[in-house]
């Protein structure tokens, strides 16, 4: 498989507090993303999983250069896009698309659905409005918003949540991107329609040999779409590996806790017990050593308090823990 994306030691620090606090010394550094590295092949889906404050959404935005990294490198199809100027970046934009959690906020309420889908083709000089309209109609059909000519004229308010997310996907897919970053695309969709949205994304992935980064808090959703899972905690990847392997035998205690916390209807499920302590720390006050140590149910070793574990790889799996769980 060929590589599409390489992320190297990506960091994003925010400075919190305004001008006044900078004089009075009240500012603090929030390390939202604190050294994230991974590779993504063509046609591959990686799920970034974690709780709020884990840095998963910030990582997604950094990759598409929607926000500027503090340091680190992003290689897209071999091109270093980290320091790229807006003009050059614009040429690459059609190849990398993002969809967001809230389909209500992603569509212009005044623009018809069809026009919203056709627009990127015109904006990027790929087609005239006439051609774009034809392609948008095909795309509406493709995402199940039929009859297409009827949906073309509708406004976002006339669509249900699930239908809007289909329109948002159509708009992102009309450019046939190489990379899609999907940030919690189904968390606001009703359960009965959730998997139909995931299925649609998987179909486009296959059709375009598209790579996908799926940002989600829900391991069960990650399992349905991802080839690999990266579990994030306080700005770092703590575990990464093939989906089924990570879920069947987690090596990081935090991954195990996420699995233990996932609800199931299966009465006989052999779930690990939820032994994790407390809540995720404030990213402005990251604990010393292993950032998970205050919540870790296993370790009381000095090493975990003092020394930060780096991700070490073995057999295609990576884990950042001094004392990883045995399989």
């Amino acid at each position, binding site marked *: 498989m060929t590589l599409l994306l390489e992320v190297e030691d990506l960091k994003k620090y925010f400075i919190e507090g305004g001008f006044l606090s900078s004089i009075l010394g009240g500012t603090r550094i929030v390390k939202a993303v604190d050294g994230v590295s991974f590779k993504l092949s063509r046609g591959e889906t990686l799920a970034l999983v974690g*709780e*709020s404050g884990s840095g998963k959404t910030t990582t997604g935005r950094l990759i598409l250069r929607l926000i500027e990294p503090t340091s680190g490198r992003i290689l897209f199809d071999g091109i270093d896009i980290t320091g790229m100027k807006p003009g050059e970046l614009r040429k690459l934009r059609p190849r990398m698309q993002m969809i967001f959690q809230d389909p209500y906020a992603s569509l212009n309420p005044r623009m018809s659905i069809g026009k919203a889908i056709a627009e990127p083709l015109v904006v990027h000089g790929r087609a005239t409005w006439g051609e774009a309209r034809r392609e948008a109609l095909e795309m509406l059909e493709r995402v199940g918003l039929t009859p297409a000519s009827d949906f073309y004229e509708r406004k976002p308010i006339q669509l*249900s*949540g*699930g*239908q809007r997310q289909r329109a948002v996907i159509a708009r992102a897919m009309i450019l046939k991107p190489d990379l899609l970053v999907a940030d919690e695309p189904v968390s606001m969709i*009703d*359960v*009965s*329609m*959730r*998997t*139909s949205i*995931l*299925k649609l994304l*998987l179909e486009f992935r296959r059709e375009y040999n598209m790579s996908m980064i799926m940002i989600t*808090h*829900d*391991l*069960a*959703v990650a*399992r*349905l779409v991802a080839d690999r899972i990266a579990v994030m905690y306080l700005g770092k990847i703590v575990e990464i590996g093939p989906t089924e392997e990570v*879920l069947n035998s987690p090596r990081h205690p935090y991954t195990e*806790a*996420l*699995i*233990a*916390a*996932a*609800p*199931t*209807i*299966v*009465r006989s*499920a052999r*779930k690990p017990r*939820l032994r*994790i302590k407390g*809540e*995720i720390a404030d990213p402005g006050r990251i604990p010393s050593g292993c950032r998970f140590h205050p919540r870790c149910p296993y370790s009381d070793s000095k090493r975990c308090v003092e020394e930060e574990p780096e991700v070490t790889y073995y057999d295609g799996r990576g884990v950042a823990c001094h004392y990883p769980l045995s399989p």
Partner: protein
Amino acid sequence: MLEVKGLNIDYMTLRGPLRAVKDAWLSVDRGEWLSIVGESGSGKSTLAMSIPGLLMPPGRITSGSIVFDGKELTRLSREELRRIRGSEIGVVFQDPLTSLDPLRTIGDQIAEEILEHDAASSKREALEMAAEALEAVGIPRNRIKYYPHQLSGGQRQRVVIASAIVLRPKLLIADEPTTALDVIVQAKIMELMKDLQKKLGMAVILITHDIALAAEVSDRMAVMYAAEIVEEGPVDEVVSRPLHPYTEALIKATPDLWREKTLYSIPGNPPDLRNPPRGCRFHPRCHRVFDRCRLEEPRRLRINGRTVSCHLHG
């Protein structure tokens, strides 16, 4: 302890009345946990909130009865309902920030709840009770002087729960209490509620869109679709042998780490309640539909301590 009989709730809208809850029947025993499961617009919150008299206008109970501990709640005045809320029925909402005042300490807020119900003779006594309630939900008593913003989302929800249980209500109604929280925090809050249910012998009504979450904590489960309770029964039976095709499909469509991977989803969209389908409301999306479903509304049937509204069963 609680019996809801033939309850109908309408919302007056500009385009005419909309029936948000249609002919609902429920009962909850002392100390029992009932979860009401449904998707957005199913009427689950409207139904639950009507019990303690928290229905927001333009919502209105048009017929039916709610009997709680021998009292007919639909006939009580606003003042009488206010007295029952807090002391006999505790309520927890989705977003803890809507229930907490950002400008007052958490201790003062819980103490006020106690004093409003004349459950303590002095502020000092009320604060002592508040401290005990905070401890019961896992918040150290020295945080009694904290303001809501000094706490995390999960801790705030614990404070709301402390405030809801401080007067030892017989029933706790929780409307999506963990939807705004992370999964691990959610699991911990559920553990806490389960623990309190047992320790205080309190009944619980949990409103949730997550059938797996409901399956893990409840004794009984009611499933709602398009303003109707389509199925109700002991949770183990409902989950392992659903009688209604909607329940069956909802289980199948819910991603679950411990079941086989499937990309199944329920076809179509939930109906517009102003113009619900004829016959059974689920029939346009049902995988077991037959002629009768399109014409005739199913009646509520009792089968071995369970209820279901579906023509498949007679």
